[in-house]
């Protein structure tokens, strides 16, 4: 009985985090962007500084007509938002936020997380292909190209940490973390974060969406709840990326004074803020420039980090 209860509590807490954190990040994006741009952002919904804006948006999305274009491949079209959302939910279950505080502590957590995150991109390729719209198609193709080039630096950077800790378990990595890993793994951390941004298709790497070129890319034909699911996937993605970066490179729950989970949340919040900040201040890269950045910028840096990690490991042991 206690075991069943334990599992239920874990599932419930992941669900709560899954539903709550993206909303907080989304609301923070509204407000942070607004204040950076000399405006106020939402002010009315819910009364106090528009705190309920995203809930209101959700209600609106639910009331909207669910349109599937005649030219669309119905099944794939309907499935795509789910495919892009669910992987992030699964990933969330594997991320530890405190010692022992993890829904599913896997021995190969890192491997699992990276593998599952890659699936999310399939959703946008499916959406782009099935919409029967030229803009969506271009968006889907751009997504595919982006995934291909950014998976590699992402994995290389992550494997450097795994090498340093000598384990693939996310909890194990955080346990092994020392403060001096910060400078040691800094280059890898930057590569991981940038590659993660590109995988999430967040600005400045949002050319699959690029509203001024491709309207909304693979999401062009989506309305109502399905569109909302895509948006939700984007914000869950931010949370997941920030949490993973915190776990792998910033020491997860390590930190003075405050309790572990609080430190973890603080780190996630700070990284999410950086994600928002980048959106406010950068134009969008072109697709070929992005590929160039990945192949001649990030991959060599990640390889260099890997070599450095190996070198230091050999010297210490």
């Amino acid at each position, binding site marked *: 009985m206690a075991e069943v209860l334990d599992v239920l509590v874990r599932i419930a807490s992941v669900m709560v985090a899954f539903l709550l954190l993206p909303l907080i990040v989304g609301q923070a994006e509204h407000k942070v962007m607004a204040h950076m741009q*000399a405006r106020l952002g939402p002010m009315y919904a819910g009364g106090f500084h528009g705190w309920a804006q995203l809930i209101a948006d959700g209600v609106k999305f639910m009331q909207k007509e669910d349109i599937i274009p005649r030219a669309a491949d119905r099944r794939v079209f309907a499935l795509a938002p789910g495919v892009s959302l669910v992987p992030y939910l699964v990933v969330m279950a594997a991320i530890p936020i405190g010692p022992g505080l993890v829904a599913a502590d896997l021995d190969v957590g890192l491997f699992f997380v990276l593998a599952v995150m890659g699936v999310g991109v399939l959703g946008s390729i499916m959406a782009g292909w099935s919409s029967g719209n030229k803009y969506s198609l*271009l968006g889907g193709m751009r997504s595919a190209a982006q995934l291909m080039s950014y998976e590699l630096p992402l994995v290389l950077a992550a494997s450097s940490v795994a090498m340093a800790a000598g384990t693939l378990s996310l909890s194990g990595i955080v346990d092994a973390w020392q403060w001096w890993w910060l400078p040691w793994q800094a280059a890898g951390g930057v590569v991981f974060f940038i590659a993660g941004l590109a995988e999430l298709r967040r600005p400045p790497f949002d050319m699959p969406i690029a509203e*001024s*070129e491709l*309207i909304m890319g693979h999401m062009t034909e989506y309305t109502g709840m399905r569109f909302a699911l895509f948006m939700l996937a984007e914000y869950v993605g931010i949370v997941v990326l920030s949490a993973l970066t915190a776990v792998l490179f910033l020491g997860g729950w390590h930190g003075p004074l405050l309790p572990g989970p609080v430190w973890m949340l603080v780190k996630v919040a700070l990284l999410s803020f950086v994600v928002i900040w980048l959106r406010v201040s950068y134009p969008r890269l072109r697709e070929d420039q992005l590929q160039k950045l990945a192949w001649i910028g990030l991959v060599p840096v990640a390889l260099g980090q890997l070599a450095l990690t190996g070198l230091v490991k050999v010297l210490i042991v």
Partner: protein
Amino acid sequence: MTERMVGIGAGAKELATEDMILNIGPQHPSTHGVLRLRLMLDGERISSAEPVIGYMHRGAEKLFEVRDYRQIIMLANRHDWLSAFANELGVVLAAERMLGMEVPVRAVWARTLLAELNRALNHLMFLGSYPLELGAITPMFYAFRERELIQAVLEEISGGRMHYMFNRVGGLKEDLPAGWLGRAGQAVAQVRSRLPDIEGLLLGNDIFLARTRGVGVLDRHTIMQYGVSGPIARASGVDFDLRRDEPYLAYGELPVKVATRTAGDCHARFEVLFEQLRVSLDLADACLARLAELPPGPINQRLPKVLKVPEGHTYAWTESPLGINGYYLVSRGEKTPWRLKLRSASYNNVQVLREILPGHLVADMVAILGSMFFVVGDIDK
């Protein structure tokens, strides 16, 4: 059982790629209205481009022929809705020249001032919208914050925020309100002081440079062939500005600095726009100083009830914010023009797209389209 040899390039025939025709517009966010571009795409590379215009054609030139000169001003200020004052100017200059009418000196200086404020408004709009097309959302809000300041002073004198209708044949509609010069000066100073906000976000930004440097290069020859004018021409080294080269209004007495670049790419066009904005603010300051010194006097002429322009023809061209804006006025001595031909800047400027788009990617198409600084109403008239 058949034996198959599979080597490099196998299946290439079956997987033959074909060109895709993509219609950008008439409803597309980066066309600012209803311009349509018919692109032939090979992957994302443009193999041919054809601008299709006319979705917003309202027959302005034909309507001019059945309106008297007071009404024409209202029609004329609408085709380029971002430079309403500059559009009015050509019409009244043409009519005044035909009538041989002397405009009061205060009106001349006030017109110059308003033309420059209007230019600043127009350029601010593009300084905000161009980065937006490249994915930078913030400059738009900064630009609109500054626009609001200038719009407020223009609204105070004319009552309009876009279509001022402040020109009259023979001068301006009304005198400037008391204390307005000071408020206008403050607005100009404030706008100038906050320009570094936009500049700092963009001009040194690596991504912005990567997206605009060497993209959409227009050479001098093509500019001349297509009659491209304004900031786009000056970015390709065509050093021509009517304010300096054929002064109208009070520009002859003002030190008009003409911003030019030689690169001819999107970045050069953006830089020219930025420098022109600075120059406009300086010119506005000079006009304000001069207006403050001028002795009181009339600001317009008393017109007859029925304004008839004597028989003849004239061509009045002015340096509109987006380029050369000309009116060819033919009158047969009636109260309406016999013909009023409008030469608008954007119409000529977008024609050149056919030349520069092929060979670029779709993403560059947006960068180039945005850097052509056009207003669809100005194309379609």
